[in-house]
């Protein structure tokens, strides 16, 4: 298996600046997207890929303006369709490193169908889903991740829609890499971006992002110092699920098949739930945890190997050519049932 987008060994040395385009960034002042843009630009040099081999594909929405600000190849497409555009690009160009930038509305509402299928196919793409639980570009209607009862311009008496959980959705679709990070935790975000970018297959990274204009502090549980300490559950491979203040450490354990929060001191080490990214079933349970009953997991929930869509298809093509030779239309036209008229 090859890592898509890998370039020549003597990959140039880049800095963050090399990935900044000459376009004025047009997000609202204070938008969480700025931090994400900066983190992505900062992460790019570490990928070791020539920047002409990097492509950003997006749909529509605030997040989807992203490609304009990256000094790489980019395509700002139409609402919800970025995963499909990227799938076609991937089949045409197995050599490129392709990122898809989308949001909760773009990726899970109008483009929900494409998200489902790109994840189950396991196309080599790094999908960054900016989740701010609101429609920003259309000025403040509720989104598919908005909470039940959310009062917005289009739901003055509260939304009647139950929200979708992006991570549970992705895992249900058969995603092979599922992670979560937060726009205000730059270091963790950079670490997650690298992990996602190096995954072979479709990587799905939810980035909790603040819309300070229409849905300010939607993720305050992970912003405010006290509550962050109380609720953030950092997932680390091989480490037990421990969270909370050091003097009041808590653990998530399994009670039968039901996750449960207990005082860490109250259980023996053998009873702790040790995080394993290869355990997709465990990841499905983790995806549903949320405050205040539970902590909020951040990090890599699942990372597994599975057959990759374009590798299968391009391998079929390669085998067809090696077994029977490249196609020749002149031969095909004269093959089979033909007859001659003198």
């Amino acid at each position, binding site marked *: 298996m090859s890592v898509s987008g890998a370039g020549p060994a003597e990959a140039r040395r880049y800095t963050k600046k090399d990935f900044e385009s000459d376009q004025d960034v047009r997000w609202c002042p204070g938008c969480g997207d700025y931090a994400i843009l900066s983190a992505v630009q900062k992460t790019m040099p570490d990928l070791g890929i020539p920047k*002409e081999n990097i492509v950003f594909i997006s749909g529509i929405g605030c997040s989807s303006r992203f490609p304009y600000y990256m000094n790489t190849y980019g395509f*700002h497409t139409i609402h919800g369709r970025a995963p499909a555009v990227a799938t076609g690009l991937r089949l*045409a160009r197995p050599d490129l490193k392709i990122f898809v930038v989308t949001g909760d509305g773009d990726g899970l509402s109008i483009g929900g169908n494409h998200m489902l*299928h790109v994840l189950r196919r396991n196309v080599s793409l790094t999908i960054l889903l900016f989740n701010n639980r609101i429609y920003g570009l259309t000025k403040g209607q509720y989104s598919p991740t908005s909470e039940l009862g959310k009062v917005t311009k289009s739901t003055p008496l509260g939304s009647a829609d139950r929200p979708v959980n992006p991570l549970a959705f992705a895992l249900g679709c058969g995603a092979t890499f599922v992670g979560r990070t937060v726009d205000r935790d730059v270091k963790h975000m950079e670490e997650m971006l690298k992990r996602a970018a190096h995954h072979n297959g479709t990587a799905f990274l939810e980035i909790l992002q603040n819309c300070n204009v229409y849905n300010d502090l939607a993720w305050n549980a992970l912003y405010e110092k006290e509550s962050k300490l109380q609720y953030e559950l950092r997932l680390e491979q091989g480490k037990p699920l421990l969270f909370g203040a050091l003097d009041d450490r808590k653990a998530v354990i399994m009670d039968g098949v039901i996750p449960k929060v207990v005082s860490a001191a109250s259980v023996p080490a053998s009873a702790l739930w040790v995080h394993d990214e290869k355990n997709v079933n465990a990841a499905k349970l983790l995806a549903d945890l949320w405050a205040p009953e539970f902590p909020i997991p951040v990090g890599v929930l699942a990372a597994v190997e599975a057959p990759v869509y374009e590798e299968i298809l391009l391998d079929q*093509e390669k085998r067809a050519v090696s077994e029977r030779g490249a196609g020749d239309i002149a031969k*095909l036209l004269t093959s089979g049932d033909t*007859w001659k008229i003198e």
Partner: protein
Amino acid sequence: MSETVAPVRTAAKQLRELDRAVVRFAGDSGDGMQLTGEQFTTESAWAGNDIATLPNFPAEIRAPAGTLFGVSSFQLQFGSQRVYTPGDRLDCLVAMNPAALKVHLSDLKPGGLLVVNTNAFDKRNLDKAGYPSNPLDDPALAERYRLHKVDMTALTLEAIKDLSLNQKEKERTKNFFALGVVSWIYTRPLEPTLEWIKKKFAKNQVIAEANARVLKAGHAFGETAEIFAEHYAVEAAELPPGLYRAMTGNRALAWGLLAAAQRSKLPVVYGAYPITPASGILEELAMHKRFRIRTIQAEDEIAAVTAAIGASFGGAIGVTASSGPGIALKGEGIGLAVTAELPLVIFDIQRGGPSTGLPTKTEQADLMQALYGRNSESPVVVLAPATPGDCFYIAYEAVRIATKYMTPVLVLSDGFLANGSEPWPVPDINSLPPIDVQFRTEKEGFFPYLRDPATLARPWVRPGTPGLEHRIGGIEKQDVTGNISYDPDNHDHMVRMRAEKVRRVAQEIPPTSINGPATGDLLVVGWGGTYGAITAAVERTQLEGQSVASVHLRYLNPLPPDLGHILREYRKVLVPEINSGQLVRVLRAEYLVDAVGFNRVRGLPLATDEIYEAIKQLLGSAS
């Protein structure tokens, strides 16, 4: 079972020469009528005839047996002269059950051959077809037609009684009996069908033996039974010399793409969602991976078109296909390709509508959708093949224009062209114009919307090209730089620029060929699958000495530059279409000519007779 059967010509039976014949096989959708028709077509191709076919089947996969709506049929016309259509009225109808008789009898010419399987005319099937009594017992039927009542089921069972197959399996071979009988009536060679059976059932020798035996039994029955007084020969047609093969429209579109992939040295990424009658193209292409054809069976129509656009962005040939309902879903995506100025080929295999409409029937009512069916000003190039074989050239031309002008090209085929077949002279691949794609690699002076002065095309850059990193998208952009722009004058400029670019494709269009006098009383203008019917009707009026000509448009947007001039050379203009008058509207708007439509929207090809009558009527009103 390997021996071949030469058509036996006994002195006892009179052999009559015919110029042409129209035969239709009709039965239950499970009776194998499509297969029977296809094999009869192959036999006729072997006999050297020119051929046109019309498969006609219900949308239901296995409609309830014996019902009127479950009837499936296959019609073909074969002749010793040029055959333009599958024919209007039938010379011979084979009806395998009462429902088939009821649905199709009115198309049989008075005095035509009517061959029926009497075994299926039982109380149950008569009830299902709505016959109060057995129509075969009505003496009027035998007076009006040359009725041949044959118990095909019993004769079939008798021919294979010793084979170890169950009753159902044995009965299922009766379509080969029908084929055998009709092959004898029209002196067709059995070899191609025997060969086909051998290949098709290589893994099941008993079935192969049964089918071959039943076919020969049918043939022998025709020869020896007393009921057929004569049979017919249709001499080989005088087609231009060369190598021929039978070609359907869908296969020709697929092979045209293969040719384009080979000549351009680019991979094709074909995104499609299964839909009748376009699915056959996806299935055909999926078999040809050696040509670097990468097919995606997408999750929906939108994904199919946007995946194709993504592939074009990556420097491959992006192609998508559907029928009318799917093209409607692709509209926004096609608009993206218009503004991103990327090559994109879209096949629309038209069918009856609106909505689900008549999935397996033909129509020409997507012309306006092709021209205008997107938001805002979204011009695309529109082409239309005239015959099944022409689909090959049109697909190739669509790729050539799309890549040369960096534009979407929409091809309007239809259900009739898609499934119909004709003897097709195999082209010399080197005679096709080159598809010479030059990706931009030069950094100096590069801008994403820099334009070629001749074509107005912007440069095509493959991602991966160092120094040319750039962003494109659906938002309006400044010409040349490609930067986002909301400037009013720039938008007006870009709207005109995109239109002008498509208009410039006119320089690719060869002079319009006129079938008939260059000036005269009446010009018939057609497009798409009506070519055969129009040509046959026009030539009939010409033989009568009328001053009538026809032109058939393969380029619908832009229109041929010489068309306006041609239209003015005739006193009347008639535009036959299988819609409510779409091209006629375009011609009237574009050229201010008083063109008149002839419109029937029955889900079937236009008949030569009805176009002929329409010409006569318009000529009459002119005098």
